[in-house]
């Protein structure tokens, strides 16, 4: 297939960007949840 490398790269870019972005969101959600837990504990302790 002519120009397959361009087609394949475009296809990979679409899903790689979405996947990396979704992964970063999941990571940030986990970090924020951990921070909320810590802040709640800090409030309860005082």
């Amino acid at each position: 297939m002519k120009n397959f490398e361009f087609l394949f790269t475009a296809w990979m870019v679409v899903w790689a960007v979405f996947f990396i972005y979704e992964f970063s969101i999941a990571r940030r959600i986990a970090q924020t949840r951990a921070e909320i837990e810590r802040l709640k504990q800090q409030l309860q302790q005082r």
Partner: protein
Amino acid sequence: MKARITITALVALLIFCAGYAALFIAPDEATMHAIQRIFYFHVASWNAMFCAFFVAFYASVAYLVTGKRKWDALGVSGVEVGVICCTIGLITGPLWARPVWGIWWTWDAKLTSTFILWLLFIAYLLLRGLVEDPEKKASLSAVFAIFASLDIPLVYLANRLWRTQHPQPVIAGGPDSGLDPMIGKVLLFCLIAEFCVMILVLLDRYRLEMLRNDAAELRYEIESRGLDASDNAATPALQKGGE
């Protein structure tokens, strides 16, 4: 949680089917042949971007009218997801242009207005990082998002209003426009698939922003009680636990 996993699995299946249809079912285009298949992801990315930026525009107006934080959270989510879709479009476009036009990029009206749109919304995200006060940040962001959205109709209409290197519109583009019925069906399928991905990512981003708001409120409460919220805010152990 179970519903979330089911929806994600369904969207993943939709993506797989759309990819298969775009690469193997859609017919070869007469002049460009296989490389034309980038069209299915490229146009779908722009469609997702327009939808995400429309959400951001609507949320920004709603925030200025109501002052509710949830609209600000939806606004920033729409912008961030829109920028991601725009980035995909700006990468897949040159990958299509190089073998067809012989060049990666040209400063025609369509491409330039799109690049400006991308820069404007990158500036929006940078602006949010520079303002500390939450109310001020939300108001400024909403005004800036509305201002940046003025470029969206220009991006859409650029190749209708001016002669551009970018192809003329094939959908609703005048008497000579139109798509082969099978290409049209596959394109519609790809548009739906990428739209669903965009919605899924947008909802997650919105959830993150609402959690950040909760964390900010807790920090404010701790500070107002005279406690030090940054006591162990970024200790390595907690960071590891968060990951």
